[in-house]
């Protein structure tokens, strides 16, 4: 991009913004804030609840919540930022933590820094650092992706397992339990989409490791945790304890509809699981299994989680920031509501003092699930995701069929390393 185009763009942008702000003044406070997010039953529903909470004190501001598929949203955002066309961009956009640094670093100036406007000391520090570049923090941190093993208490009971039997287990034990469950109930323990590398990410972070070192260089070849994770995944894939599915819809349908007995994933899945009220009272949650024989391995990890970002090009950014500040960084009751309703486990610390975080949930067999997650979230090993998680995921996925067929883990790791080295230049 040469300077003159940039200069022109800024000039036009300023003119458009000046025009827009005059409009908003003359149109007497009829502001509409557009929000892009994915997962209507989770992020969308949480945003709707936030809009309701905000409308009580600000009836003049309306929210237009646009739900996309997550992949489509990311691609649309990236296309428009790359093209430099900001007219169709929303005021607020949801970005997954894995990709945050990629957007912030590739498109400097596209997102509004909220440093000094939001009190970040009240948020979980790890979420704040994920959206920080230099001295500026750009996000209004939203949910934690703290992981749990969500299981069907009725099916596990039939196979002779009590909730305590699932606490603090290893993946090997998990496979044994799964075999037992299938023998007794005829139902598979889990379902797997082999085009999704989420489980590898869960395992890596559970032992405090990632695809990359803190300085951004690949951490593949001598990564004992990655080796253990791939070995464990190979065992799972070869054990036959799963139902193969393809695509996210089939994946969620299998456990939501009761076809499989459990799922290990982020706490945000609660929004989906609670969508099927017929199974109310038949679910429980345990920490995920842990890697065997790995130093620093824990039963706690993170999968996904995302945050809200304000576009710097937004003509309504002051309204958007005010909205985020008042509700997402100030309304304890709102956080109780989205916790119970969607399993949206916020990272705004004062919310943890609310009632919902302390009470048992009848949907989950009256287990104190939220108290548990509050404890677990403290124990998740911190890692730096870097900017190439997407690329690393693709490199891992490329080796999964070979691993599934019993191929050597050493070779797979070499191939993953070779692919990542090429992709990150």
């Amino acid at each position, binding site marked *: 991009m040469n300077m003159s185009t940039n200069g022109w763009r800024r000039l036009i942008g300023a003119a458009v913004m000046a025009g827009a702000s005059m409009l908003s003044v003359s149109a007497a406070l009829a502001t509409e804030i557009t929000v892009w997010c994915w997962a209507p039953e989770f992020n969308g529903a949480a945003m709707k609840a936030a809009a309701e909470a905000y409308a009580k004190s600000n009836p003049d501001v309306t929210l237009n919540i646009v739900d996309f598929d997550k992949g489509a949203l990311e691609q649309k955002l990236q296309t428009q930022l790359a093209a430099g066309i900001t007219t169709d961009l929303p005021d607020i956009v949801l970005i997954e933590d894995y990709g945050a640094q*990629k957007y912030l670093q590739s498109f400097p100036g596209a997102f509004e820094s909220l440093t000094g406007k939001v009190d970040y000391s009240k948020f979980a520090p790890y979420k704040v650092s994920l959206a920080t570049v230099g001295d500026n923090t750009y996000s209004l941190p939203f949910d934690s992706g703290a992981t749990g093993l969500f299981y069907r208490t009725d099916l596990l009971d039939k196979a002779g397992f009590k909730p305590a039997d699932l606490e603090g287990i290893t993946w090997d034990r998990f496979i044994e339990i799964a075999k037992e469950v299938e023998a007794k109930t005829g139902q598979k323990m889990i379902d797997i*989409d082999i*085009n999704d590398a989420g489980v590898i990410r869960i395992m890596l972070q559970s032992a405090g490791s990632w695809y990359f070192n803190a300085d951004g260089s690949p951490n593949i070849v001598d990564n004992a945790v990655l080796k253990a994770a791939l070995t464990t995944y190979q065992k799972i894939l070869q054990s036959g304890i799963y139902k193969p599915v*393809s695509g996210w819809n089939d994946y969620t349908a299998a456990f939501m509809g009761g076809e499989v007995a459990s799922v290990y994933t982020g706490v945000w899945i609660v929004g989906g699981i609670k969508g099927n009220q017929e199974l109310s009272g038949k679910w429980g949650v345990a920490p995920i299994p842990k890697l065997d024989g790995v130093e620093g391995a824990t039963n706690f990890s993170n999968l996904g989680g995302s945050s809200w970002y304000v576009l710097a090009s937004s003509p309504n950014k002051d309204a958007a920031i005010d909205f985020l500040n008042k509700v997402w960084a100030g309304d304890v009751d709102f956080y109780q509501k989205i916790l119970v309703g969607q399993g949206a486990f916020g990272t705004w610390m004062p919310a943890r003092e609310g009632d919902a975080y302390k009470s048992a949930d009848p949907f989950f067999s009256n287990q104190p699930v939220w108290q548990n997650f509050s404890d677990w979230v403290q124990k998740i090993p911190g890692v730096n995701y870097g900017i190439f998680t997407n690329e690393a995921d693709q490199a891992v996925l490329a080796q*999964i*069929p070979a691993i599934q067929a019993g191929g050597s883990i050493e070779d797979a790791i070499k191939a993953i390393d070779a692919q990542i080295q090429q992709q990150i230049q």
Partner: protein
Amino acid sequence: MSGTRLARNEQINGWLFIAPSVLLIGIFLVYPILWSLWMSFQVGKGMNFSFGGFTNIIRLTKDPIFQIALTNTLIFLVFQVPIMLTLALLLASALNDPKLKFRGFFRTAIFLPCVTSLVAYSALFRSMFSNEGVVNKTLMAMHIIDQPILWTSDPFWAKVLVISAITWRWTGYNMIFYLAALQNIDRSIYEAAKIDGVPAWARFTQITVPMLKPVILFTSVTSTIGTLQLFDEVFNITEGGPANATMTLSLYIYNLTFRFMPSFGYASTVSYVIVVGVAILSFVQFYLARERSRA
């Protein structure tokens, strides 16, 4: 003297007439092509470019995904184009038979896939070929298979699925070209051949195919280009998976630009690989066709 002036005036008028289209082509075609050529020598993440010389070309030679994408694209080309064109040719000559009843209906039915949207039919194929989709259920009910085929999660079957999908979508399109060309073949040639006792298959291979050669060349060039640019189907049905088994060059360009850390320069380099590929393959096809017509 006046004649020269007239000629010059006519020339100026001529240029004026074509000026708008030349201008538009220049802005929307020539400029982007030259710009992308310049881009293909740039390196850097996102909007931060710098000139990288041959870095991107060297990267091509070391990039495993690029090599997989190139191989997959060639596999699709080598299997899909001949299958589709043969099918189209056979269907066209069958439907050209004046004695065939419901000709119009069959022609429409076979051409119909072609008017469906690429995304819509891809979405349908995806659901039909899902693990518990209608195709697996039918095959299992007919006892052809006893385990569902994992169409989208098995590298081999995913390729088969993509080839079937494109063949379904494009066979009718090519058939229409053959049907049109067949109208231009004089019936009396077939009559004469029949009287001389030439069997039906030989009439097809010795008369129909040679007479259609220019059209076959045209369809094979356009199909080759289409396959090299294959994107919609793999994006919507398999997303390039499993394990890059259906990754094509176009999908890889898309990933490099919009899914991964954007590297516009390298993505442009990969698109120039397609340009070069199309040029080479088209040249080879023209060359082969010319040689044969001399013999």
